[in-house]
C-alpha cells in the first residue's frame, strides 16, 4: 500500500513538474519534435525523425549550439494520429517550443488556426496546406522550399519535357494515384487546371488509408487504362506497396513519378531490381559525403548518441530530416541576428523564419553545399517556389535525373492566392496580419 | 372453485362477461419445417376460470402457449379472442390485447432490479412523450409515481417488499418466479399464461405460489391458463384441464374426469401407441 502511495505521489509530482514550463537554462532554447516512429507511416517517419534530431544534436556537439545557445529538444510521438498530434501541440505550447513541425498534413491543418493565436510558428516543410505559402494571410505558417502544387507542376513540366515540350502533353493520359486523404487530394485542383490548359487527361486512382497495403485494384485499373504516365502522392506503407504493384503489373517504371514524399530509399528498394527507373521529384540530394553529415556521423552516431543506423545516413528521407532541422537552426540564427537576443522566443523565431536566407556561401559554411538549392523566405512568400529536380532510382540508390529546375510558378501562384483567400473567408473572422508585408 | 367468480379489484376493460368464452382455439396445427408440434387441437378458455394444460414432455404445451400469445403462427386453424377471429399478429400486439405470461425458464430482465422488472409490466399503460421523459417533469413524473403506486400494490400482494431494490439476477430461483408473476400481474392482463410456475420449487414454495395463483384468480378475476407437471397442484388449482400428448388433444374436462380418462393414464404411464 505504501509502495502504491509513494508511486502515485511521485507520478503526480513528476507530472506537475512536466506540465510547468521547463526550467530552461540561461543559454538554451527548446524545440519539440513531433515524430512518428510507430504506426503505418513509421517506415517514412523514422528516417525523418533521425535526420532531424541528429542534426540538432550535432549542432549542439560541434558548435555548442547556435551562437552558444544550446537547443534543448525532445520528441513527441504522434503515430501520425491527429488526436495525438494535437496533444503534442498542447504539450509543446506548455513547454514554450520555438517552432512546431507537425510532420503530417492532418496535424498541420489542425494547428494552423491555433498557431496565430498561440504565437507559435508552424514549419511544415514541403507539406501541409499549400495556401499557407501566402505570408500575408498565414504569418505563422511556413512551408518552404516548395508547396505540393509546386511539386506537381514540376512533375508535369518534367513530363512535358520528356514529350518534347508542353505541347507534347496534348492527348496524353496521366494517372494520378494518391492517398485518399487531404494530403493526396490537395493537388487535384491544380492537376485539373493543368490538364485543361495542356490538353491531357487525368485518371484518378485513390488509395484508401486502410487499404494502403492492398492496391491490387488500383494497379489493375491502371493496367486497363494504360495511362502514359503515373504520378504518385503516397506516404508510409503506401509507397513500397505501390512500387511493388507497379513492378508486378509491368508498368514502365521510367513513366512512374512520385512526389518527394514517395521517394524513400526503402520505398524504392521494395520493388527489387524491377524498380529501376522509378522517379521522384526532390528538393535535396542524397549521399553522406557532405561535411555536415560527416560531422553527424562522427560526433553523434559513432559517438553512440543516436540510434540511427550509420548506413541510413545520406538516404533521401534522412537527409530531408536534416534539411528540416537546418531550417530551424538557421531560423534561430537569423532571429538572433535580427533581435540581438541570444535566447529567443517563439515570436522571434517567426521573424527569423520569415527572413530566412540560405545562400551558397552559407551552405558552404554549414557544410551542406550542393545538398539543397539556396533558399529564401520572404514576408509575403513563406514557401518560395524553389527549384526542384527529378531523381531516379538506379536499383540501389537515388541519382539525379535532371538539373535543378523551377516549378511552373506562374501556374501555381494564382490558384495558391485564391486558395489562401478562400481559407480566410471560410474561416472568418481570420486574424489579419498586424504588420503588413511590404509590396515587394 | 366456482367458475363464476365475481371480479373485484382491478378489472380489465374487456367486454367479455364472466362465464363466457374468452379465447377459443379451433383445429390449430403448427409445424416447424416438417416436424409437427401441434396437430388439430381445439379447446376454449372461459373468462374467470383457471385452465390447466398438461401432458408429458414434448406434448406441445409450451408451443400451445406460444400460439396463444402470438409468438408462433399456426399453419392451420383459427383463434378467436373475445368473440373475434384473430388475424396473424405480432407478439407485442397480444400483449396489448391483455395477454400476459410467465416463462418456463425464468425470463426476467437480469440487469434490472425487482422494482424495475415489475415496472416494465406497466409499460403499455404509460404514454408520456419522449421530451417529458428526458426532463422527467410534468406528465412523465406523475406517470412514474402513479404506476409506482400500482407496482407497490403488487409487491405487497406477493410479499416481496424486501427485495424491491435487489437486482433480480441475485435472487434465489423461487423468488425469481414470484417476481416474474408480479411482472405479469403488473400488466393487469385479462388472460394470464403461466408456463410451469412451480417447476423446480420445493413444497413450501409450491404452496406459496399456489396460494398466489388462486388469490390472483379470485381477487382480480384474472383468467389463468397454466402448464404444470405436478398433478396434485393441477387437480387442486384448475377448473378445467386439457391434456395434450404428441401434439394432440387426448382429453378435456374437469380435473376428476380427466384423471379417470384411460388415454390420459396411458399417456402418462407410457403405453405404446
Amino acid at each position, binding site marked *: 500500500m505504501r509502495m502504491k502511495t509513494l508511486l502515485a505521489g511521485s507520478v503526480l509530482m513528476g507530472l506537475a513538474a512536466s506540465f510547468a514550463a521547463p526550467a530552461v537554462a540561461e543559454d538554451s532554447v527548446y524545440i519539440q519534435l513531433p515524430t512518428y516512429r510507430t*504506426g503505418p507511416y513509421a517506415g517514412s517517419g*523514422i528516417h525523418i525523425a533521425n535526420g532531424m534530431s541528429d542534426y540538432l544534436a550535432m549542432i549542439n556537439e560541434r558548435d555548442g549550439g547556435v551562437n552558444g545557445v544550446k537547443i534543448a529538444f525532445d520528441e513527441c510521438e504522434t503515430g501520425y494520429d491527429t488526436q495525438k498530434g494535437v496533444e503534442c501541440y498542447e504539450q509543446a505550447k506548455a513547454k514554450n517550443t520555438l517552432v512546431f513541425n507537425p510532420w503530417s498534413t492532418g496535424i498541420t491543418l489542425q494547428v494552423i488556426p491555433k498557431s496565430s493565436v498561440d504565437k507559435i510558428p508552424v514549419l511544415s516543410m514541403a507539406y501541409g496546406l499549400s495556401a499557407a505559402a501566402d505570408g500575408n494571410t498565414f504569418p505563422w505558417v511556413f512551408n518552404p522550399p516548395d508547396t505540393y502544387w509546386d511539386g506537381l507542376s514540376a512533375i508535369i513540366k518534367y513530363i512535358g519535357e520528356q514529350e518534347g515540350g508542353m505541347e507534347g502533353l496534348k492527348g496524353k493520359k496521366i494517372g494520378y494515384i494518391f492517398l485518399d486523404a487531404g494530403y493526396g487530394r490537395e493537388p487535384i485542383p491544380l492537376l485539373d487546371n493543368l490538364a485543361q490548359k495542356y490538353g491531357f487527361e487525368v485518371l484518378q486512382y485513390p488509395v484508401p488509408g486502410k487499404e494502403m497495403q492492398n492496391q491490387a485494384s488500383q494497379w489493375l*485499373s491502371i493496367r*486497363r487504362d494504360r495511362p502514359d504516365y503515373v504520378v504518385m502522392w503516397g506516404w508510409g506503407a503506401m509507397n513500397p506497396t505501390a512500387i*511493388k504493384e507497379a513492378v508486378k503489373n509491368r508498368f514502365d517504371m521510367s513513366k512512374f513519378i512520385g512526389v518527394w514524399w514517395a521517394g524513400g530509399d526503402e520505398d524504392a528498394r521494395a520493388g527489387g531490381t524491377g524498380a529501376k527507373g522509378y522517379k521522384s521529384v526532390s528538393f535535396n540530394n542524397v549521399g553522406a559525403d557532405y561535411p555536415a553529415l560527416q560531422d553527424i556521423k562522427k560526433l553523434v552516431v559513432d559517438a553512440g548518441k543516436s540510434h540511427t543506423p550509420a548506413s541510413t545516413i545520406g538516404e533521401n528521407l534522412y537527409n530531408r530530416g536534416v534539411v528540416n532541422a537546418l531550417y530551424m537552426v538557421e531560423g534561430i540564427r537569423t532571429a538572433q541576428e535580427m533581435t540581438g537576443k541570444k535566447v529567443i522566443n517563439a515570436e522571434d523565431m517567426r521573424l527569423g523564419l520569415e527572413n530566412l536566407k540560405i545562400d551558397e556561401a552559407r551552405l558552404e559554411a554549414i557544410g551542406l553545399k550542393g545538398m539543397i538549392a539556396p533558399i529564401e523566405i520572404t514576408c509575403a512568400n513563406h514557401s518560395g517556389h524553389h527549384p526542384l529536380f527529378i531523381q531516379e532510382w538506379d536499383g540501389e540508390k537515388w541519382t539525379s535525373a535532371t538539373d535543378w529546375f523551377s516549378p511552373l510558378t506562374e501556374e501555381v501562384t494564382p490558384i495558391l492566392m485564391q486558395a489562401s483567400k478562400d481559407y480566410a473567408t471560410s474561416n472568418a473572422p481570420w486574424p489579419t496580419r498586424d504588420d503588413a508585408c511590404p509590396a515587394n | 372453485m366456482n367458475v363464476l367468480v365475481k371480479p373485484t379489484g382491478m378489472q380489465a376493460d374487456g367486454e367479455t362477461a364472466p362465464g363466457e368464452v374468452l379465447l377459443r382455439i379451433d383445429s390449430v396445427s403448427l409445424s416447424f419445417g416438417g416436424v409437427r408440434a401441434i396437430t388439430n387441437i381445439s379447446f376454449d378458455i372461459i373468462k374467470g376460470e383457471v385452465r390447466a394444460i398438461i401432458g408429458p414432455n414434448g406434448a406441445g404445451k409450451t408451443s400451445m402457449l406460444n400460439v396463444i400469445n402470438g409468438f408462433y403462427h399456426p399453419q392451420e386453424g383459427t383463434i378467436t379472442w373475445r368473440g373475434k377471429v384473430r388475424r396473424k399478429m405480432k407478439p407485442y400486439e397480444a400483449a396489448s390485447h391483455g395477454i400476459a405470461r410467465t416463462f418456463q425458464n425464468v425470463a426476467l430482465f437480469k440487469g434490472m432490479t425487482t422494482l424495475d422488472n415489475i415496472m416494465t409490466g406497466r409499460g403499455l399503460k404509460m404514454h408520456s412523450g419522449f421530451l417529458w421523459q428526458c426532463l422527467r417533469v410534468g406528465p412523465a413524473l406523475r406517470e412514474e409515481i402513479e404506476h409506482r403506486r400500482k407496482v407497490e400494490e403488487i409487491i405487497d400482494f406477493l410479499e416481496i417488499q424486501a427485495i424491491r431494490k435487489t437486482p433480480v439476477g441475485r435472487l434465489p430461483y423461487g423468488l425469481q418466479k414470484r417476481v416474474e408473476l408480479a411482472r405479469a400481474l403488473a400488466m393487469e392482463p385479462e388472460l394470464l399464461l403461466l408456463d410451469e410456475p412451480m417447476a423446480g420449487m420445493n413444497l413450501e414454495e409450491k404452496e406459496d405460489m399456489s396460494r398466489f395463483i388462486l388469490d390472483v384468480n379470485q381477487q382480480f378475476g384474472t383468467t389463468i391458463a397454466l402448464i404444470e407437471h405436478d398433478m396434485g397442484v393441477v387437480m387442486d388449482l384448475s377448473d378445467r384441464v386439457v391434456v395434450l400428448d404428441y401434439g394432440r388433444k387426448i382429453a378435456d374436462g374437469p380435473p376428476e374426469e380427466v384423471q379417470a380418462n384411460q388415454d390420459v393414464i396411458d399417456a402418462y404411464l407410457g403405453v405404446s401407441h
Partner: protein
Amino acid sequence: MDMLYNILIDPFVQMVDAPDFLIQVVWEGFVAGVLYALIALGFVLIYKASGVFNFAQGIMVVFAGLSLVGLHQKGVPAWLALILAIGIMAILAVCIEKFVMRPLVGQPDIILLMATIGMTYFLIGLGEVIFGGEPKQMITSELGLPTGSTAFEMGERGLVILQHIDIAAAVIALLMVGGLAVFFNRTRIGRALRAVADDHTAALSVGISLNQIWAIVWFAAGIVALATGIMWGARSDVSFALEIVALKALPVLILGGFTSIPGAIIGGLIIGIGEKVGEIYWGGLVGGGIESWLAYVIALVFLLFRPQGLFGEKIIERI
C-alpha cells in the same frame, strides 16, 4: 438512362471486351480472397474451440511475420528464424491461454472479444518495442519461396500475369485447410477439440483438459497467422498497417459462418473476388475507393436475406 447503362451494361461489355483482363482481375481477387480466408481460418479455429471471437488474429499475423523477419535481420538464418518464429507463436499461445483465456472462462462473448482487443493493443506495443515500427521486407527468397512471375499471352494484346508467390499462397492455403481438416476429424485431439467446441463443461466432465486444448488451438491459429504473414508480407510488406486489412476477415466470417472451415474459404473467395470486380468495374462510377467498405456491405446485404450465414442452419427461436 446513361447511369443505368453504366451500371447495368457497360461493365459487362468491358468484361467481354477484355477477357484477359477479367481473368487477371478475378485472379487478383482470388489471391486476396485466399489471404482473407487464411485470416478468417485463424478466427474460425479459435471460435470453434473456445467461442472466442479473436480480434487479435490480425495482429498475430503481423506479429508472426515480424518475428520471422526481425530475427532474420538480427542475423539468424532464414530456416532457423522460421523455426524460432513458430516457437514464438507457441509461447504466445501458451501465454494467451494462461493469462487471458483461463481467467476469463465462462464470461460473455463481448468480454472475451474485448480481451482480444486488449491483446491487440498489447501485441502492437510489444511488437514495436522489440522489432521497431518500420515496415520490413519479407524474406521471400531466403525462405525458398518462388518470386518470379509467368505471363500468358491471350489473343493480340491480352496478357495474364501470374505471380509465383500467389500460386504458392493458394497451394499453401489449400494444404493448411486440408491439414486442419484431417487434424480435426481424424485425430484424438481433433475429437477433443470438437467436444470442447460443443460444450465446455461437458467436455471437462469427460476428462478433456480445456487448458491444453486451448493452448493447442491458439498455437494452430498462430501457425496459420505465420503462414498468412509470410504470404501477405511477400505481396506488400510486413507492417502494422496490415492489421487493419485483417478486419476484412469479419465479413468473410459473416458469409461463411463462424464455425465452418470450408465456409471461411468460400467466404474469403467471395469477398476477395467480389470486391475486386466491384471496385474495378463499378467503383469508378462513384469515384473509386469503394473497396474499403464494399466487403462489409456485401456481407450486410447477405445477412439481411440469410441471417444465419452461408452454411448455418435456420434458427428456430424458442422460449
